């Protein structure tokens, strides 16, 4: 499987790049992404000319200190924010020019997102939070319920279905958020510091779940500042001041998925 590190990506960003087709095996392909946050007097260059490729079934972690532009990059890739310039292909489709509404439609089936602060809809029960995207994607209430029950069984949330987010612990909330992100079986799971607000036990649980879904073929792009969390990935990209500083493969994909415990042992 080819890697598109910074050097190879720049080659692709030629003037007639608009006619370039993404490689068939790329789930996500971004070229020359730029995003600047402009304040009243200051401009923060959050993302500078980033090229990135995530293949199907790959688990990629983006690491970096706070303020490195990790979350901004993730938001750009999930269509939550718009790049100033650059191109993005998602599942073979050019998406950087999509309208907000088209992005919403795309996210329903193709992208699941998990956040650091869980961001569950506060008024809705855990069950409703998970069934809502399923209904949006066109499932019948019966199907949505069946799918949600299946996920809750996997995530050990069966007895929390009627609870509101406020009544759930942090770990439970993040598992509900994970269920919500996965309910429509998206091609890509984006996770923004999913363990940032959890204690070590819950962190371990969430990572184990991510690893399990990765093992079943889920493509995952995870943002974290925690090296231990990143170590579960196939590949770790280091972001510094909005630029990719390093792109390292941890395991050959042929090795198959690894468990967090393996990684932790490896890294010492």
């Amino acid at each position, binding site marked *: 499987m080819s890697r598109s590190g910074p050097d190879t990506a720049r080659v692709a960003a030629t003037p007639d790049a608009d006619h370039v087709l993404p490689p068939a095996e790329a789930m996500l392909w971004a070229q020359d992404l730029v995003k600047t*946050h*402009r*304040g*009243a007097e*200051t401009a923060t260059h959050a993302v500078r000319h980033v090229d990135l490729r995530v293949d199907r079934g790959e688990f990629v972690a983006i690491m970096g200190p706070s303020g490195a532009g990790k979350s901004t990059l993730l*938001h750009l890739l*999930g*269509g*939550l*924010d718009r790049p100033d310039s650059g191109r993005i292909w998602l599942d073979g489709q050019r998406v950087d020019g999509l309208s*907000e*509404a088209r*992005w*919403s*439609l795309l*996210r*329903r089936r193709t992208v699941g*997102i998990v956040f650091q602060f869980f*961001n*569950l*809809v*506060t*008024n*809705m*029960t855990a069950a*409703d939070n998970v*069934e*809502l*995207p399923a*209904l*949006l*994607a066109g499932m019948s*209430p019966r199907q949505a319920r069946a799918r949600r029950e299946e996920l809750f069984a996997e995530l050990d949330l069966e007895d929390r279905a009627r609870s509101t987010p406020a009544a759930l612990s942090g770990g439970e909330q993040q598992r509900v958020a994970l269920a*919500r992100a996965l309910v429509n079986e998206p091609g890509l799971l984006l996770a923004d510091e999913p363990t940032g607000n959890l204690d070590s036990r819950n962190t371990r649980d969430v990572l184990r779940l991510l690893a399990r879904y990765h093992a079943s073929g889920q493509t995952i792009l995870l943002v974290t500042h925690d090296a231990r969390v990143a170590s579960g990935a196939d590949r770790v990209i280091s972001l510094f001041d909005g630029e990719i500083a390093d792109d390292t493969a941890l395991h050959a994909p042929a090795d198959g998925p690894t468990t967090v415990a393996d990684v932790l042992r490896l890294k010492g």
Partner: protein
Amino acid sequence: MRALLRWVRADLRAHRGQAALMVLVTAVIAVSLILANALLRDAANPWQRIFLQSRGAHVWIHVRSGADTAPLTRLDGVTGVAGPYSTASADLVRGAEKVSLELRAAGPQLPSVARPLVRSGRWLDPARSDGIVLESSLARAMRADVGGTVTVRARDGATRTMRVLGVADSADQGSYPDWTPGLGWVLPTALDRVEPDPAHIQQAIGLRLRDPGSADFTAQQAVTTLGSGQVTQVTTWQQVRSAMGQDNRLLGLLLGVFGLVALVAAALATAGAAGGRVLAQVRDIAMLKTVGFTPAQVVRLFLYEHTALALAGMALGAGAASLFGPLLPGALGEAMGVWQAEPARAGALAATGAGVVLSIALATALPAWRAGRIPAAPTVRADRPASGISRLARLALLLKLPPALALGSRAAFHRPLRAGLTVARLAIPIMMITVALGSWATLDGFQDHPRQLGLAASLTARPSGIDDAAARRLLTEQPAVAAAYPGAEIPALVPGETTTITLRALGTADHPYPFALAAGHLIRDEDEAVAGQGALNLMHAKVGEWVRVTAGGTPHILHIVGRDIEPDHNGEMLSVDLGALAGPGGTPKAQYYALVLRPGANPTAVRTDLLAASHGRLDVRPVANPAAQLGLVRVVVVGLVGVLTLIGLAELVTATASGLRDHVRDLGVLRAMGLTPRQVTAIIVTSTALLTTAAVLAGTGLGVLLSNRLINMEGQASGVGAGIARMPAPETLLMAGAVAVAVAACVSVVPATRATRARITAALSANRT
């Protein structure tokens, strides 16, 4: 759609109280609009119904006995003629009660134009020459039933007992007692017996027209054709209709205006509440977008939710109005009963409902649109440029006020646009409450200071069967009577005009009647007159002008020196000194005496005393006070103040919540800096109280201006005349304002304390959106 419904359901469950408040407010507004609609229809309808069924005449003309009315039937546009009928004046007597009556001679066959609609009993019968058919409002007032007898007293004092054969509706004139004399039909032979002198017989002729709008023109043509000396009275269908509908229509209009204002206020409250909810749910909305809601779907969420609430409120209101409306006491209940039987009801209900729901949907549109524009990612927003402290806060610091006050005033006004909007939204209900208080004060004015509002005399006494001197003696002997002014009223024709106004001679040169003047001065000379607004409108005249009227065949040229407030007869009154009617035979006899009582005297008691002292030879009646009829307005005012208070409270809750959201991080910083929780609470309460004070000042000021203008406009339109508006007493306004500020402070204490209890770290890490 399913996902949308799922969210709406969850949201409603989470905000049960707020949702219930919205539904309740909408329901109350729906009820008041439905009641207004029913009253308005009821006000316009009885006449319309009767007029259609009876093929009513558009113009009625009373002429002297000898006049030839044949040319009238040939006037252009006349499609049918009623009469001419011979008529005579008489009195209908029942115990001590006596009412003036127009007896109209009719045949045993019902006419085809202006046909009386017999409601009970039967029409005149040649076999019963002593039979009489009474107009239904008169029969009701006299409690005369079919089969019973009534006593008719002729002009010469002779009495005659007549049997009531039937009771009939008629669109020929307004209902008794608003319209006098009352109407009764008898056979021509009976009329001849009651009034044997042909000189006192008049003729009444009704003209049915092709174009009802040309009634005024036709009436004028008729007067020209016959000569104004022959015509004694002209009425058009418009006058009859307005006389029949006036009371309820005024009430209906009031309810309608109040309902609409409440609707606007509720729409604003909805906009505020929805806006507040959008701000409160920025994170959730961003999340909804993340999981795949499109911006249009987010807009629809809010629109659907509030429209559903409005629909629920509307259904509740319509249900309540239909179920309980007819059970309401008085005119409201009756109107609702009639309304329910009406076929047009469904349409009116649908229109009202659509209006209410649409306004609320429109009010939600802006906040919903804003919700649609909330970005999907919780993006980093550049901090607002640090706003300097406001002028008010600077002043507070300069005056070395406690920090809570200084910071509170900064918190209130540091975002001027938002503060302005909050003040405006709060000011609207306060303004309307002030208008409602103004209406209340005006009614109080009618009741407590009737003299200033054209009701100096509270009783009238009409001598019957005793001479003038004896009557005068009886009145002056009564200690409670401060003054008795001799008066006479005759219909007067205004040249070039089609309708008659009442020429009232009241008071004498050395004993002038205390008219309540809104402009000009009192009558000082015999050719001077004061006129009510209604009369001025009819004559197209202004104070200071000269007018010519014909009364009783005699032309009078009068100088209008003042406008007085006339609560009666739609203000169509031209008042002169009794001497002005003096002919060659000297000053005319007084028809009645207007009695001004001593302060504190009870009119009912005085009336009883006078009736007893005169052995029934003085017909003493209380002067109708419009405040008595408008008693229902007070109920409406109280209800309105309730609704507006509810709306104001809803606004206040929104304002406090959004204010807190704005400042939650600042408050955390302040606490971290060392302000005590109590000081922080004080800052929030001060900020809310300051905003409310600004709203009270603006709302009360505008309200007073608007109230005076609205009430005077109403007075002018109803003929009473501008100048009746009374301001709510300053202490009432002060009290209301103080209560509003106090309530606002109390309402903000709860969320303020809650905010103070939140952990400082939580406040500091709060999302700043």
